[in-house]
């Protein structure tokens, strides 16, 4: 999906039917990215976060499907306990509904030292426009840092299919696995 940028009609342009369709599609998608609830690209609604933390598994990459839209050049998260290296990344989507999964890496930080405890914002290699449901945010770790996110219950479950996955990988791979493990226990990631 590369058509989220809004389009304007040049003066004197004669718009035929399929042009009209394309222009509206692009403008509607831009509208969707800017009006989505929540209005920022995060992996789940921030005000639903219940104060839990999650210990990431070593050499594991976590993927969360974004709910909001916008252009991001970094991924923010909250570190409770720092350890080892992390990488963050943005992926495009393949598949639909509960078969949706991350596909190709669009931008990444590569492996960097895990930020100190507190709010963290790790820069990507460049900016990328993300659209709700059409992109994924990812974080991988070399060790076992503790981040804000879901906790308590078993991580692996098809309850999270189409929403959140993990796979064995660090740093975030160029292509996500075609058979990642669906999870219900993901770190809270925010596109910034």
């Amino acid at each position, binding site marked *: *999906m590369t058509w989220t940028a809004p389009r304007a009609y040049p003066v004197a342009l004669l718009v*035929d*039917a*399929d042009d*009209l*369709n394309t222009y*509206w*599609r692009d403008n*509607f*998608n831009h*509208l*969707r990215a800017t*009006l*989505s*609830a929540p209005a920022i690209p995060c*992996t*789940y*609604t921030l005000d*639903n*976060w*219940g*104060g*839990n933390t999650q210990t990431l598994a070593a050499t594991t990459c976590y993927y*969360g*499907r974004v*709910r909001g839209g916008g252009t991001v050049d970094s991924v923010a998260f909250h570190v409770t306990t720092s350890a080892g290296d992390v990488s963050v990344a943005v992926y495009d989507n393949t598949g*639909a*509904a*509960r078969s*949706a999964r991350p596909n190709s890496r669009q931008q990444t930080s590569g492996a960097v030292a895990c930020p100190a405890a507190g709010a963290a914002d790790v820069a990507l290699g460049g900016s990328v426009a993300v*659209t*709700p*449901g*059409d992109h994924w945010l990812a974080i991988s770790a070399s060790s076992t840092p503790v981040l804000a*996110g*879901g*906790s*308590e*219950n*078993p991580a692996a*479950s*098809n*309850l*999270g*299919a*189409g*929403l*959140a996955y993990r796979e064995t990988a660090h740093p975030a791979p160029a292509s996500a696995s075609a058979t990642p493990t669906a*999870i*219900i*226990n*993901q770190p*809270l990631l925010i596109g910034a």
Partner: protein
Amino acid sequence: MTGWTTLDTWADTDVPSHSDLNAQMRDNLLHLRETLDWPYGFPACGEPAGRSATVDLWRANACIYERFRGSGTITALGIHVLTSSGNIGVAIYADNAEDGDAAAPAARLATSGAVACPAAGFASVSVASTAITSGQHWAALSVDNLTANFSGSAMNTSGIGPTIVHRGVAGIGEGAHPPPATGNVGFSTAPHISIVGVA
């Protein structure tokens, strides 16, 4: 949003009439509206990937009703059982078509009836095929005991209790196992049990 152009598109030689233009704009804007809040292309209740507490049903023989976000035709309701015990029932209800916090489940459209609680882990409990429209249908889960518990929201780990803050979104009815023919919300509830629609 990947599917909206299949709802209504113009071919190159089309000359849209006023009524066609109106209908196509309507359909595409309605699809846009739906994806603004829940962009994932399938129905679900309770943000299943982000919140993962242990939640029971607060009372034995009670039924929790949760309003669907997202649309699609489903043949089962998916839950994650943490502790299996006794019997459960799942169901789909039509909305009462009221606005705002007056929205509530009304007529039962499909149900599993009372079935043995599945073993611990993810479980799909079958119902008759039903087309779900975001905000216009509710999922329900009833349980005959308080030992069984499920993955759900992190707001209350000791069980779902009464609150007024989620009227029109989620509620509980007592003395309602298996799910009754007509939805009967006794009080609203903020904590959810995570439920997904399975195609």
